[in-house]
């Protein structure tokens, strides 16, 4: 025998091996896996693959876990689908990720994790500007409530400061030197220092002296004192701009100084007062923002708080729009008031 037994053996092996390989491939390609793979094993493999950073393979394993048969425990399936959803979400495949979540929910409709995931997917799918709009809608009631506080401060100051201002203006033009000097000093003090400083002093500086004020009270006092000083100067200017002959002719029919002031001089200042006082009140709307520094929540403070929580710049835009609406309403009203007060003028 010349051939070596080893060769013959190899040849036979090859002959035998080919059908075996075909058989093996055939099984893989054409026959469904007879028994589903063990879900526990798949979940365990997937988890380990995540640890190794092999996310594709992990995803494959997780997705292989099949829904539980009736009576079987759903826990493994839910875990696997959830893990798959997370991987898909991080790859921004929102559609498939959502599909994973709905798989879970069709089995366990109350699953909180899946629901939260769906919300996150929805949020991720909405464009940025839409998100901003949604924020604006969400926080609008908060801003409007704060606008109410701003308006309240403005209206109270609008009520208090003209009355106080008139008193100061009349004191300022008094012929009694003591009175005139006192009110000159008042105006000097309140016009010459920042409103912010005055608010700080009233809110933080008075308690050591035994006067503790609520933020709202401190804000009203601060704004009222400050604005009355400005209005006093405007009113003084208006009173002094009325023709001297008016006071003389009022006196000539026997009026006292105060009767002449009340009936003749001051009523003639109204129309002249409207434009500059309107300006002051518009400045006031914006100056109320300063009271946010003494723990008052008004429009500016509320907008600032929401902005810091959301970093949504459109909240500030929204606040700006509210301020603009307020100032526009004021501007228009003062224009109409001016026209109405001017009826006695021949133009």
């Amino acid at each position, binding site marked *: 025998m010349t051939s070596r037994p080893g060769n013959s053996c190899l040849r036979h092996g090859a002959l035998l091996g080919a059908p075996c390989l075909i058989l093996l491939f055939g099984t893989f390609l054409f026959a469904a896996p007879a028994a589903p793979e063990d879900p526990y094993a798949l979940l365990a493999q997937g988890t380990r693959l995540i640890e190794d950073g092999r996310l594709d393979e992990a995803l494959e394993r997780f997705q292989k876990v099949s829904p539980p048969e009736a009576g079987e425990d759903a826990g493994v399936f839910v875990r696997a689908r959830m893990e798959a959803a997370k991987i898909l979400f991080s790859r921004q495949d929102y559609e498939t990720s959502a599909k994973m979540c709905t798989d879970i929910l069709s089995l366990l409709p109350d699953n909180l994790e899946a629901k939260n995931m769906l919300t996150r997917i929805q949020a991720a799918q909405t464009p940025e500007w839409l998100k901003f709009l949604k924020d604006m809608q969400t926080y609008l009631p908060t801003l409007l409530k704060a606008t109410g506080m701003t308006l309240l401060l403005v209206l109270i100051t609008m009520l208090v400061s003209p009355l106080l201002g008139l008193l100061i203006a009349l004191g300022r033009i008094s012929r009694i030197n003591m009175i005139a000097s006192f009110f000159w000093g008042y105006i000097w003090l309140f016009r010459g220092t920042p409103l912010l400083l005055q608010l700080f002093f009233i809110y933080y500086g008075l308690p050591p002296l035994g006067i503790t004020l609520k933020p709202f009270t401190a804000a009203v006092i601060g704004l009222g004192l400050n604005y009355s000083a400005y209005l006093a100067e405007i009113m003084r200017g208006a009173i002094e701009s009325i*023709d001297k*002959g*008016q006071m*003389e*002719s*009022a*006196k*000539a*029919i*026997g*009026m*006292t*100084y105060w*009767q002449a002031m009340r*009936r*003749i001089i001051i*009523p*003639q200042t109204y129309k002249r007062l409207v434009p500059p006082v309107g300006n002051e009140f518009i400045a006031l709307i914006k100056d109320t923002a300063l009271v946010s520094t003494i723990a008052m929540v008004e429009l500016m403070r509320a907008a600032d708080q929401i902005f810091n929580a959301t970093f949504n710049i459109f909240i500030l835009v929204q606040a700006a729009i509210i301020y603009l609406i307020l100032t526009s309403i004021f501007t228009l009203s003062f224009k109409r008031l001016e026209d109405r007060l001017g*009826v*006695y*003028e*021949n133009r």
Partner: protein
Amino acid sequence: MIELKSVVKRFGDLTAVDHVSLSIKKGEKIVIIGPSGSGKSTLLRMINFLEKMDAGQILLEGKPVGYRTDKQGRPQLDKPAVICKLRSEIGMVFQHFHLFPHMTVLANVMEGPLTVKKLGREASRTIALDQLGKVGLLDKQDAYPAFLSGGQKQRVAIARALAMQPMIMLFDEPTSALDPELVGEVLNTIHALAEEGMTMLIVTHQMGFARELADRVIFMDNGRFIFEGHPADLFSPDMEHPRIKAFLAKIL
């Protein structure tokens, strides 16, 4: 009725009224003429205490104007209420009308009776309408002064002063600010008032008017009266005073 005793008014170095004495009887019409700055208006304004005098005394029906005598016999400034009462009895009409622009014509005339005399709205209204009727402006009662002509404004101002039923009327150049064609209507109004017997003291540059109306004419220059007498004498060709001759030559 009115007695001025050596009245003096100074503005700094300038003596606007220099020791002037004058006596006005009830129903008398006195016209003061003279160049600008001669102290005519100041004199008028001192009578209702719109200007304080520096020396002398003014008596209205025997009572001193603006001052009372204290226990030591020194003059003291009167209380505002007394001064206001005095002014309410003296009517004054200004060169520039000084109507209250924010009130209608009717409200302007009502203002005195309403606020000063406190007669109530209805009574004040009746008085005001009566006076507006006299100056012929009933149809303008609801207009604002800005919509009136100068002559109409001055007539309203006259009605406003008359509504207080004053015992004397002071006119401070009532026609100087008017367009020439509007002077007549105001002078007619004053004439009508004179015919009713109103005591009047008028500062004017209307010479013809002075001649017709005045019981007495005063020529004032540099704070003094340099002529006081019948208008016929002032305007007579025999007038010799050089200041008066020069002034009249310019004006007539």
